[in-house]
Each structure stands twice: as C-alpha cells, then as structure tokens.
C-alpha cells in the first residue's frame, strides 16, 4: 500500500514536474489519488487475484470517503479558529462597535451587542415556542383526537419552510404595515424571536414527538392499569422516562436557532451599537454580525466577522456538547434489566432541514 502510494506520488510528481502546467493542487490530488488506486489494485491483483484486489481497493475508497468528511469538518473548525483568534480579545464581550472606523485594528471594539441580542432573541423565541411545541408533541402522541393527523401533516410540511420565508412572513405581516404606528412592530428583537419561533415550533415538536414515541407502551398501560389518570401517566411516567431525550431535543433546537441567520435579516435588521431592549429598535445578533461584517470590503471588518464566527461556533459546540452530556445513557447502572429500559433516544434533529 505504501509502495503504491509512493509510486503514485512519484509518478505524478514526475508528470507534473515535467509538464508543469500549473493547474494547482486539485489536479495533482485527483490524479495522484487515481494513480494510487490503480497501482494499488494492480499490485494486489498480482498477488491475491482480482476479487481480493477489488475488495481492498473499495476499502481504500470507503476509508478515504470517511477521511473527506473528517477533513471537511476539521478544515472548517480550524479555519474559523485561526482567523477568529486573530481578532478575538476579551474586549469583544464588553464593547460594541461605538466609534469604530475601518482604519482601526480589528482587535478594537467588539460584539457585546451581538451576544446580548442573540441571547435575548433566543430566550424570547424559546419562551414563545416551547410551551406550544411541547403541548403539540404531547397532543400528537398521547391523545386520541381525530385532529392528530392534520396537525402532524402541517408540522411536517412547515418544517420544510425555507427559513428566509419565515423572516419575510413576519416582515410582511407586522413590520411593513405597522412599523409606522408602534415601535413594537418595527425592526426589533421581538420580531426576530417571532420568526425564529416559526422555525423552532415544527423542529421541537417533531423531535420531542419522536422521543415520546420511544417510551414503551407497556409503561403507559401499567400506569393506567394502576388507576392513574392519563394526565398523571404523562406527567409521572412518560415525561420522566423521556426526560433526557426531550432535553437533548430542546438543546439541539436552541443550537439550531442560535445559528439561524436568514430570518433575522428581515426582522432584527442588525445594528452596530448596544441595544439591550428587544422590544424597541433594530438589534444585532451574532449571525447577523458575522454576515454583515464578512461582506464588508475592509479587511478589519472581515476579521471582526471571524471573531464573531468563532464565538458563534463555540456557543453551538457548547450547546452540542451539553446535549450529548444530557442525552448520555445514565440508566445503565440503575436499571440492569434491559428488557423495558427505554433507550435514551437520540433526537433526529440532524437529518431534518
């Protein structure tokens, strides 16, 4: 294998060195990889036959596909880390963009206004959407109503609503017609939270419903057979069993909401200074801060944007780690009988737009 790799590299080095057509790293990579595969196949086929050679070659291809996924992740994380650390200083969390001009170095000023905005908007949208979506998930799974089917269809359909359309919807319903009348209908954090909740409601409803479905029916029946009411069953049996999964689902929903940019363009609008009041005046959020700064022509703004991107990434990674931590299998030692032990369900957040 190493031999084949060496051969391929040398061969291509030779070809490219001689021809020297300067096509960049990609051409070298592709042709080296293909030559490597060919050499590997020929070498193995010579010794073990065609069947084994195919098997081994496919193994190499499969492993390299895994490598590509890892490389993409690593490249993204490292890139943002390196560029973000250049401009990220403790001052980022204490100051806003007051008096910042393009000529000042990117370590001046900060994004505290964006952090505050993100926190407020996320909290508000959580307050708006969590009760509704939890209730809807319970409704879908624990009731016997005829309305379950239409509700499920609508929730499924709406989870495919492009996020930008959510923002546009809020803009067209509230901001455009009513912004002149009252500040609460202008560009502000509340409007951003409304559009974010439109995204969160279907997401959280779906994931929590999946988690509730994984609670074994035997547990419910046992509780009902003991004479508990259905409300009591849900409260004392279903919820405790599904708690870890539900928490994981909600935390992942928050992580999704924190990084959502598109709906904010039409609702929070973005602002360079601190505005801690989410009900009045346009507000900044971390994703917007990144989005707006990266598009500016001056280098310092781009660097500031990357500082914001780094903070955003750390927040998302922290939420992700929190979800993993909460969702870990804690029942293993407590309940050795594996028969009925509900699997700590992994929410399927990741496979849904």
């Amino acid at each position, binding site marked *: 294998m190493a031999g084949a790799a060496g051969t391929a590299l040398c061969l291509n080095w030779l070809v490219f060195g001689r021809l020297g057509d300067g096509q*960049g790293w*990609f*051409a070298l990579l592709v042709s080296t990889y293909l030559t490597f595969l060919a050499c590997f196949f020929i070498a193995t086929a010579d010794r073990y036959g065609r069947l*084994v050679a195919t*098997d081994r070659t*496919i193994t190499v291809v*499969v*492993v390299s*596909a*895994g490598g*590509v*996924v*890892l490389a993409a*992740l690593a490249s993204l994380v490292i890139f*943002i880390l390196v*560029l973000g650390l250049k401009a990220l200083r403790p001052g980022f969390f204490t100051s806003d963009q007051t008096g910042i001009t393009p000529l000042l170095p990117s370590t001046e000023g900060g994004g505290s206004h964006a952090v505050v905005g993100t926190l407020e908007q996320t909290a508000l949208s959580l307050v708006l959407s969590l*009760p509704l979506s*939890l*209730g*809807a998930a*319970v*409704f879908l799974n624990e009731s016997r*109503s005829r*309305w*379950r089917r*239409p509700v499920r269809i*609508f929730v499924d*359909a*709406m989870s*495919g*609503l*492009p996020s*930008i*359309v*959510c923002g*546009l919807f809020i803009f*067209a319903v509230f901001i455009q017609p009513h912004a002149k009348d009252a500040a609460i209908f202008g560009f502000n954090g509340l409007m951003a939270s409304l559009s974010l909740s439109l995204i969160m409601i279907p997401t959280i409803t779906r994931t929590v419903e999946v988690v509730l479905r994984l609670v074994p029916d035997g547990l419910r029946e046992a509780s009902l057979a003991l004479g508990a*009411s*259905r409300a009591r069953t*849900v409260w004392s049996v279903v919820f405790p069993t599904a708690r870890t999964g539900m928490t994981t689902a909600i935390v992942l929903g928050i992580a999704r909401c924190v*990084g*959502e940019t*598109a709906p904010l*363009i*039409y609702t929070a*609008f973005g602002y360079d200074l601190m505005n801690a009041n989410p009900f009045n005046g346009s507000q900044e959020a971390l*994703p917007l801060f990144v*989005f707006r700064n*990266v598009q500016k022509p001056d280098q310092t703004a781009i660097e500031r944007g*990357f500082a914001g*991107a780094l903070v*955003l990434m750390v927040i998302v*990674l922290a939420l*992700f780690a929190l979800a993993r931590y909460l969702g870990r299998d804690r029942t293993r030692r407590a309940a050795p009988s594996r028969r009925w032990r509900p699997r700590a369900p992994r929410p*399927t*957040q*990741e*496979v*849904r*737009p």
Partner: protein
Amino acid sequence: MDAETPVASPPRRPRVVVDEPARVDRVFDAVTFWSGFSVLVLLSIVGLFLLTSSGDSLGQTGLWTFLTRVEWRTDVQPARIGVLGLLVGTVVVAVIAVVLAVPVGVLAALFITDYSSARLRRVLIGLVDLLAAIPSLLFGVWGFVLLSNQMVPVSRWISDHFGWIPFLATEPNRDLTGSMFIAGVVVGIMVLPIITSVAREVFSQAPPGEKEAALALGSTRWGMIRTVVLPYGKGGIVGGTMLALGRALGETIAVALLLPQVPLVSKNILEYGGATVSGFIATHSGGDPFTVSGLMAAGLVLFIITLGTNMMASVVVSRSRSGVGVEL
C-alpha cells in the same frame, strides 16, 4: 355466536365502555388539544398568508409569466418580475451539491457501519452529528473566504479538460469566483451529514443473518456489501438524497454570500453568476409592498418545490424495506 349459543341469550347488547375522564384528564385533554390545534392554526395562517400576499404580484404579472420570465426588475413601470432565473440557479446549485455529496456520504456511511471498529464508530457518529449542527452561516463564511479562492484553479482545470461537455465550458478570461459550481460544493458539504446519517441509519439495520450468510458463502466484505447492504439500503439512499436535495434547495445564507444573486439562465456553471430563490430574497430586504409580494411569491414557489421533494423523500423511505423504522 348468535346461531350456536342460544343459551346465553339475555343481554345481547354489547358491553358499554364507559370513558368518563377525570377532571384532571379533561383539563389535560383541553390543554394538549388547544396547543396542538393552535400550532395547526398558526402554521395554516402562515401558509394562507403566503398565498394571499403573493396573490398581489402574481395577479399583476400572471402566474405563467411569473414562472417563465427570467428578469427581475422593479425599477421599471410596470415592474417586470419573474422567477425562472432564480429557480434555475436554485435547482442547479442543489443538484451539483447532491451529485457531489451522495457518493461521499454513502461511502462514509459504509465506513461507519461496516468498516470501523465499535469505538471509532461512536466517535464518527458524533462527528457527523456535529457537522450537521454547525450553522450554515459558518459554512458560508468558510466557503466565501477560503474555498472560493481555492476553487478557482479547480474550476479552471475542469473547464480546460472537460470543456467539451457543454455546461462545463467557460469563456476565456471570465471570472471564475462566485460560480454556481463553488456554491454547489459548499452546499454539498453542508448536506453531507444528512445523507451520511440517513444512509448510516438504514445500513446499520441491514439484517445480520443475511450479511453473515454472504460472508459464510465466501464473499469478500465488498461482495457482502454489494449483495446485501446496498440493496437493502437502496430506499434509504434515495430518500436521504431527496431529503438532502430539499435542504439544498432551501439553503439561504451560504448562497447569499457566494453568488452574485443576479437572476439569469446560464449553462456555464463554472463562471461568475447565478442566483437562488432564497439567496435572492435574503439580499433584497426592505422593498416596497409590491416587491415584497413578489418575493413572497418566489418564496412560495420554492416552498412548494421543497415540500414536494420532502414528501417524496418520506414516501420513498417509508415504502422501502429498510426505511420502516427510520425517522426523517
């Protein structure tokens, strides 16, 4: 029952099932019903509003004209708006993304289920989930600043060597940044975790008995995968692909950063230029009511396409042998 046993005749009425909910149950039923119902109402309001507010611009333009016109000009009177230029870009970018991501994603899923050790598998599943949790903005920024420049020689190379394929040709001396190809690559990386996790889910459910049978008959690992795992997971692969396509169609921020967002129909995907529906909406904020109504109509068209793709995905997955228990 009636004919053979005339003995137990007296009460022929079926036993009455009494479901007298306790008071707490009535409250519980009411609360859950109303939250479910209000979600339904809320979401249908969104849908209805989309329909009615796009009605303004659609009525003025005409549905067919709107769907087939390329240009989007609101500065002239009467405004000439159409969604074709945006739709073509949207579909091209999404298709490039899926074409690039499907092979890699499926192979990576195979690596996770059938090649890695149990320990490595858990780590890899976590990493793929992590890749899915990263906001699309960060992918967009990464593509915008890093990949965009790195990809220019790649585009040049492709057009030099494969320029005989019509859509891979480029005019000489054209700018190759900000092309639909680059946007497609970035969106492809973004949808990679979706394909990988759906494919992994179905591959991991491939029946172990059949796999062992294949191996016991002397098949190599690849032979086992080709004859058992891949046929079993076919529905999952197709469904995951369509799910990823739906996601790629609706992707906003990355394409808003990467593409110039000027509507056009071009067959040269490697050249500067291109627009997608969601990206176009994102870069045209704050217009007059008519523009907003037009954007709404564009969003509605996109929503319908995405909806169709997602629904087909779930039908395909749930109909297939492997996808019964898979949650999309």
